[in-house]
């Protein structure tokens, strides 16, 4: 027990410090909440126009509204384009020297930081958005989860989704060691991920073949799964299959990212003297 506590301690400390830091940026949090609220409203109105044409839709309007609000509330949790500027600077400016001087594995240390950053941001921002969204008038209101089981499924897959997106981010950081200019990899990753993760348009709206590719990609294992499970758009065996796909991607990305960071570490050149 004591051993467990002492091995968890450094990670808990990284978490705590990250939260302390995030709490300092109140204005940024407020601005984030406002932006996300407006963005969510815009998306919903856009879809409203689409639904009014009477076209056949793969999600009910209420499911879609809930999907959008949850997405905006937990933006920081799932968007791939949230980078930790400190980590990138570490690699490109040479502060990695201090990171490697710590008695911790680099991958685990950074992975913890990434998860902590996303979680602290999301927790700080989700409450007002969820609150307002659940008080809106009827068609635009965020509904309660489809069932208690759906809610549990949402919590589980959201947590795993957070780990998957953190593992994806770590892959990008790993590549930054080799390219040194983080821009290219990041822009590419963000553009592809954005589309395939269902951040722009929920995956059920995709044409059949593209939808299949997207749903099996690691990007769909991030927000697509928890948000659709919550609203009941995805349930039963189908949800279970996707949960397995999610687990597969998590393990695969951990293995890949771990290997990449190890390789990078061996040939690390500390930039700037």
């Amino acid at each position, binding site marked *: 027990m004591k051993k467990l506590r002492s091995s968890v301690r450094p990670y*808990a*400390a990284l978490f705590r410090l990250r939260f302390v*830091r995030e709490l300092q940026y109140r204005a940024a949090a407020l601005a984030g909440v406002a932006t996300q609220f407006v963005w969510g409203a815009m998306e919903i109105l856009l879809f409203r126009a689409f639904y009014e044409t009477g076209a056949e839709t793969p999600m009910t309007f209420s499911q879609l509204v809930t999907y959008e609000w949850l997405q905006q509330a937990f933006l920081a949790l799932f968007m791939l384009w949230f980078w930790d500027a400190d980590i990138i600077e570490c690699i490109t400016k040479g502060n990695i*020297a201090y990171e490697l001087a710590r*008695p911790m594995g680099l991958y685990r240390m950074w992975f913890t930081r990434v998860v902590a950053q996303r979680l602290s941001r999301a927790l700080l921002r989700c409450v007002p958005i969820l609150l307002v969204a659940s008080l809106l008038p009827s068609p635009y209101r965020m509904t309660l989860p489809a069932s208690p089981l759906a809610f549990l499924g949402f919590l589980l897959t959201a947590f795993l989704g957070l780990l998957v997106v953190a593992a994806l981010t770590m892959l990008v950081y790993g590549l930054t060691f080799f390219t040194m200019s983080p821009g290219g990899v990041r822009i590419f990753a963000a553009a592809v991920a954005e589309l395939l993760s269902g951040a722009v348009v929920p995956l059920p709206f995709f044409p059949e073949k593209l939808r299949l590719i997207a749903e099996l990609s690691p990007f769909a294992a991030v927000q697509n799964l928890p948000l659709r499970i919550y609203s009941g758009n995805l349930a039963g065996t189908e949800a279970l299959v996707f949960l397995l796909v999610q687990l597969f991607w998590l393990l695969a990305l951990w293995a890949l990212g771990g290997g990449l960071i190890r390789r990078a570490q061996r*040939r690390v*050149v500390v930039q700037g003297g």
Partner: protein
Amino acid sequence: MIALRNIQKTFRVPKREAGFGRAARSFFRREYTEIRALDGVSFTVPDGQTVGYIGPNGAGKSSTVKIMSGILTPDGGECEIDGLCPWRDRKKHVANIGVVFGQRSQLWWDVPVADSFALLRDIYGVEEARFQKTLRELTELLELDEILKTPARMLSLGQRMRCEIAASLLHEPKTLFLDEPTIGLDASSKIAVREFLKTLRREKNTTIILTTHDMADIEALAERILLIGKGKILLDGSFEELRKRHGGKKLLTAVVDGGTVPVREGLVLLEQKPGLWRFSVDPALLPVSDAIEALAALAQLRDLTVEDESLEALVLSLYREFRV
């Protein structure tokens, strides 16, 4: 105990010449230049010794420190520090050492220094009681009382460096590596850092490896000097030995009203300004009294001082001697 044997490190640097055409060509075919940063470096440092590691820029000082602190993996050679290999047993090894890179910061930029310290406490798994005791000592010696609650970004360079040094000692390491710890500091901060390191050595018997360009650091702290140039250890000895070996030259400054400069073997004119001459005297070739006599015979002396040649000048002449 630190032991390095035949450490080698080569960096591959992309070669790119100026100009658009060349840049376009190197887009398709990269050429690399190999830079031998370390070319067979070997030395041993017993426990409790303070070593000044000196050499011009780009000589390989920082690379050596990074290898000893587990950050860089060398291409060849062996290194053992307290029974561990820095790069193979990195995690265990770094728990026993402290590192300060004068040009970088290990403090979290936007939180109070005390929060960064608490994080380090947890990362190194230091017991609370032990941590409080160490922190009290460090706070007193480095005068951190007022600044512990300040975010790192608001500290002056001198304050920050004191915090950096404290941060690297919170887990009471046996060995401390300092890579240019006094860079950019004002005189009083430099002295504070030196005094602190002296106390540390006296009270904890910490082994200290220090790289610096400030010879006053070396003079104040180092019992032993290692000179590195072009990736090789050129000289290894105590400060006194160095002085003796290089003649223990004296610096002669004469204030004169006029006359001619004497020419004698062992007497080198370093500087000549109207009314002020500076000589370096090599007592092995010319006793200092003879030099003064020669000077008095040819010039109207008003004042005369004799001093030991400064370490700064000594090191400069060493760099010149070894062409580094």
